[in-house]
């Protein structure tokens, strides 16, 4: 075993010295390589973090949402339905929810209006709690600047901003405006006793299907959406966008692989001469290949570390400013928040296979070609 280690050490030593002698070339290669890793890693880390954010949000969502559908469109649901569903076995509670969208012409943004179910979040009369995206969209200069909303020309409703929801409270709260029930009904001119939809809690997840089955017989014109379906939709959306990003980035990977192969095959006269000398003084083809693989490994490791760390800082430190517009955004208002750092082995393995493997594959044949130089070449 020891000779093996000594041999590897000597080869690595030689490689390090060789890289040091070609500083400019090495830096250029590592820089381009790291950039490619950075792009792919950013997309992956960001999409995974978004998926997890959505999971966190959904953790508080009800197991089942019931909507009234008329002519295939979403309608307000009658409060009388609440008692029907609450009577089903397995349902632990049913709650009517009020939420809707509002286009604010002055800031040009869509807000989500909602009556919170958590009593601690219900604002007083004439007050509103807003997401931080709302504050940004209307360029609120100070924390308590009142919210003026105009529903039609000449109309103006004022809400005092009781609180701004913190940036940590995730993706979907960014464009929220929370009102109490009376204010909400007044603002949208809704009659009493109707709700946007119903939130149904079911204690045992195995019973969700049974509950839906029974409820759909009671309410043939209702639509039932489970939390798992929403989660799947989010996850699909994000993975799809991530995949799309990476497919686009793969063009970069491909270009880089070609660049690397070209560099590796177009060895400079100096490098070719060096390999010739090594073969002449007793290095075997395999020794030269091992040495060159060390070179590839060191370059890859450096670029991989730089690129991945860069992406980590980019995504979790700066909210992925460079790629966020592509990957997220179902609303006009992009949330401004820090994602919780999350990296796992599978991401690293995937990233490694997507970047280092193409590089290695692209350089291997040129390396072998250089390494199979005739040993007596330097004598001719």
């Amino acid at each position, binding site marked *: 075993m*020891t*000779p*093996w*280690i*000594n*041999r590897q*050490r*000597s*080869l690595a*030593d*030689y490689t390090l*010295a060789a890289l040091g*002698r070609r500083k400019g070339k090495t830096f250029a290669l590592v820089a381009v390589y790291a950039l490619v890793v950075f792009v792919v890693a950013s997309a992956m880390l960001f999409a995974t973090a978004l998926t997890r954010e959505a999971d966190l949000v959904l953790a508080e969502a009800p197991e089942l949402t019931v909507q009234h559908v008329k002519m295939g469109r979403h309608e307000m649901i009658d409060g009388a339905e609440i008692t029907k569903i609450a009577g089903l076995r397995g349902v632990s509670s049913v709650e009517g929810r009020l939420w809707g969208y509002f286009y604010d012409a002055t800031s040009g943004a869509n807000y989500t209006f909602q009556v919170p179910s958590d009593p601690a979040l219900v604002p007083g009369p004439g007050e509103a709690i807003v997401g931080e995206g709302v504050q940004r969209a209307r360029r609120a200069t100070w924390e308590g600047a009142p919210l003026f909303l105009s529903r039609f020309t000449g109309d103006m409703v004022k809400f005092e901003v009781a609180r701004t929801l913190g940036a940590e409270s995730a993706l979907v709260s960014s464009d929220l405006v929370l009102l109490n029930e009376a204010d909400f009904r007044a603002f949208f001119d809704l009659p009493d006793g109707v709700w946007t939809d119903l939130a149904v809690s079911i204690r045992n997840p195995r019973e969700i299907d049974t509950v839906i089955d029974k409820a759909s017989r009671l309410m043939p014109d209702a639509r039932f959406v489970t939390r798992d379906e929403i989660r799947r939709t989010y996850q699909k959306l994000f993975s799809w966008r991530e995949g799309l990003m990476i497919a686009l980035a793969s063009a970069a990977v491909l270009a880089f692989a070609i660049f690397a192969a070209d560099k590796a095959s177009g060895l400079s006269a*100096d490098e070719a001469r*060096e390999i*010739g*000398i*090594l073969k*002449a*003084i*007793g*290095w*075997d*083809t*395999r*020794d030269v290949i091992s040495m060159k693989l060390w070179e590839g490994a060191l370059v890859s490791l450096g670029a991989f570390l730089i690129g991945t760390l860069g992406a980590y800082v980019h995504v979790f430190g700066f909210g992925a400013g460079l790629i966020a517009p592509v990957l997220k955004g179902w609303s006009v208002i992009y949330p401004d928040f820090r994602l919780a750092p999350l990296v796992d082995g599978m991401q690293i393995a995937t990233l490694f296979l997507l970047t280092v493997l193409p590089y290695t594959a692209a350089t291997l044949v040129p390396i072998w070609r250089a390494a199979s130089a*005739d*040993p*007596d070449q*330097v*004598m*001719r």
Partner: protein
Amino acid sequence: MIELQEVTKLYNEGRPNEVAALGGVSLTIARDAVTVLTGPSGSGKTTLLSLVGLMARPTTGRVFLDGEMISGLPERFLTAERRTRFGFVFQRFNLIRGLTVMENVMLPAAPLGEAYGAVRARAQARLASLGLADKAEIPVEYLSGGETQRVAIARALINDAAVLIADEPTANLDSALADRFLEIVAGLRGEGRTIIMTSHDPRIWGAEVVDRVVEMRDGRVVR
């Protein structure tokens, strides 16, 4: 110890620029002696040297090393034999620029997997015996011609080769340095090493230390 039987060597085989560098050479090289291959340029002496030194395989014919036929061995076994038994000093020395004297000398030992310290100590001793002890950490491009050659000799002997092979060793040296080289050769012969070189320099094949001169012409041995 090294025996060639009816050896031929073609370069660029099967292509329009095919060259027959050797046409049927048989030669036996004695142990513990100094042999010089001589002849005009293009006579095939460097090709013969590369076959003797296991650098290349003959196109036809056989090569025996200590009685074992090695001309059919895979390249990596030839290399394995070559690097532990033969040391090479090339005409243009072929040191690697940018590396220090010590690093250059240690290079042939790198694939063998010996402990770094042991190799380094051996290199240090060899450099000292060649009068280069104080140059060990200098990059090789700052050396004079004679020093460069001695570094090349030190490198050739780092794996304790029994056979030293030198291609036109004095072609780039003035006569004082050529004499110094012959002294080194005499010393190595005294250590019990076999030395084989090519040269068309009369100072070499006329020298006292040389045991045998092989003369070549047009890819054949004439004397």
